[in-house]
């Protein structure tokens, strides 16, 4: 069974923070990390390290968070390393490729940016219950209702998508087992045979997903859900002093980062 839902129960400062503060922090961090100067890199790295420590994440948990994107990070690094013009450091003859100093620096920089983004998002999901996360997004989008953005419906849609994923995985397992019981083999054979087996699985899975979506929509209606109608939730957020402190720290980070950028330009 594939494990879903990264949230790890805990009682760290990060766990206790209002989800709205954490969401705003991730968005702000995403903005400042792009275009960061070398001095900003040090500042943002130190901030990220402090947040990881505050969340009491172990090195194993940090690596686990990065594992799903390892291939993507390696690809970004290699593309920049091998295809950036500049002062050659190493030739890869007979291949028409060479590693340049600029490529190495650029590769490390871009890989650091993406790894930082992934870690920030991972800290958010590790320390925020999915329900609070969706509630936080809804509350933050609520002021946009005036310009026609239905924050409550968007929150329900996100929650449904999160609910749907384990359902689809369960269905996938059921179909796979049912087909294996009737002789299907997904692990051996050539590419053509394996592709056929996957298609045989994908079609019923897709049909099942449509059927489940219909049933879920009916169940929501049966329990009084009507798009566009006001609704309430269990979530009650209170903006505590610690949230104010976290918000001030975030503001200081953004101002310092922008200050360093202006100074460097």
């Amino acid at each position: 069974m594939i494990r879903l839902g990264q949230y790890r129960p805990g009682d760290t400062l990060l766990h206790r923070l209002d989800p709205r503060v954490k969401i705003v922090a991730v968005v702000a961090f995403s903005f400042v990390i792009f275009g960061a100067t070398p001095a900003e890199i040090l500042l943002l790295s130190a901030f990220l390290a402090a947040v990881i420590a505050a969340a009491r994440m172990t090195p194993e948990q940090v690596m686990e968070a990065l594992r799903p994107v390892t291939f993507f990070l390696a690809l970004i690094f290699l593309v920049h390393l091998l295809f950036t013009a500049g002062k050659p450091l190493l030739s890869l003859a007979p291949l028409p490729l060479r590693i340049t100093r600029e490529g190495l620096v650029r590769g490390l920089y871009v890989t650091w940016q993406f790894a930082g983004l992934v870690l920030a998002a991972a800290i958010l999901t590790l320390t925020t219950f999915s329900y609070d996360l969706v509630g936080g997004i809804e509350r933050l989008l609520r002021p946009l209702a005036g310009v026609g953005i239905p924050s409550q419906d968007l929150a329900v849609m996100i929650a449904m998508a999160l609910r749907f994923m384990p359902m689809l995985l369960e269905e996938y397992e059921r179909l796979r087992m049912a087909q294996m019981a009737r002789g299907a083999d997904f692990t051996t054979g050539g590419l053509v045979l394996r592709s056929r087996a996957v298609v045989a699985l994908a079609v019923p899975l897709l049909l099942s997903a449509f059927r489940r979506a219909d049933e879920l929509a009916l169940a929501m209606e049966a329990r009084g859900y009507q798009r566009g109608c006001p609704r309430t939730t269990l979530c009650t957020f209170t903006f505590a002093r610690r949230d104010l402190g976290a918000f001030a720290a975030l503001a200081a980070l953004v101002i310092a980062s922008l200050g360093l950028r202006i100074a460097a330009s």
Partner: protein
Amino acid sequence: MIRVENLVYRYEAAGPECLRGVSVEFAEGEHTALIGPNGCGKTTLIKHLNALLFPASGTVCVDGMLTTDVASVREIRRRVGMVFQNPDSQIVGMTVEEDVAFGPGNLALPPAEIRSRVGACLEMVGMTGFEKRAPHTLSGGEKRLLSIAGVLAMNPRYIAFDEPTAYLDAVGRKRILAIIRSLNQGGMAIIHIAHDASDIAAADRVAVMDRGLLLRTGTPSEIFGDAELLTAIGLAGAREERGT
């Protein structure tokens, strides 16, 4: 009182009639069992009771409100709860408590009231302590209990159960039937689709359907005493099971 009069329904405009002029009443506090062979229209009928389906002709009236009156739909869905056959189709929350809170949230109740209902309904079905569990980690029987709690949180007057004991073991069946009985004893009207004779022993009234028609209503003893009727609709086995 839910009053169904001459209800006709087709899933496709030019398709066959799934319900062919059904007229039946479900009184407050009454426990009615709906029986009949697969495909006879039982589920289609109960989907009309909380305005999930609308009649092609005829009417469905819940406590004086027509299901075709758009302004009444929300209140009708509050008054008539629906427990689907497959709990996976009904659970919409990412956690147990969030799922139970979904219906009261749609009624725009204050968070404190929602929390109080969530606690009370989970206790009622014996699921206190499961609040933070993800629904996909629950067993089939627990999912069934959760789907009942989710409906109870709407504080309905009537609950329609679509084969609530299907696929459950003996212990699970007993537990669900005990909950249904206790709800009914508390004054809740129950409309209960069942195939198993033992499931409907506690019903006040049994309505028999076949091929889109309501054939007959009567007490469980009257219905299970009518061998000819049960044979005609292919439920003779249910009679033997009941030991009539």
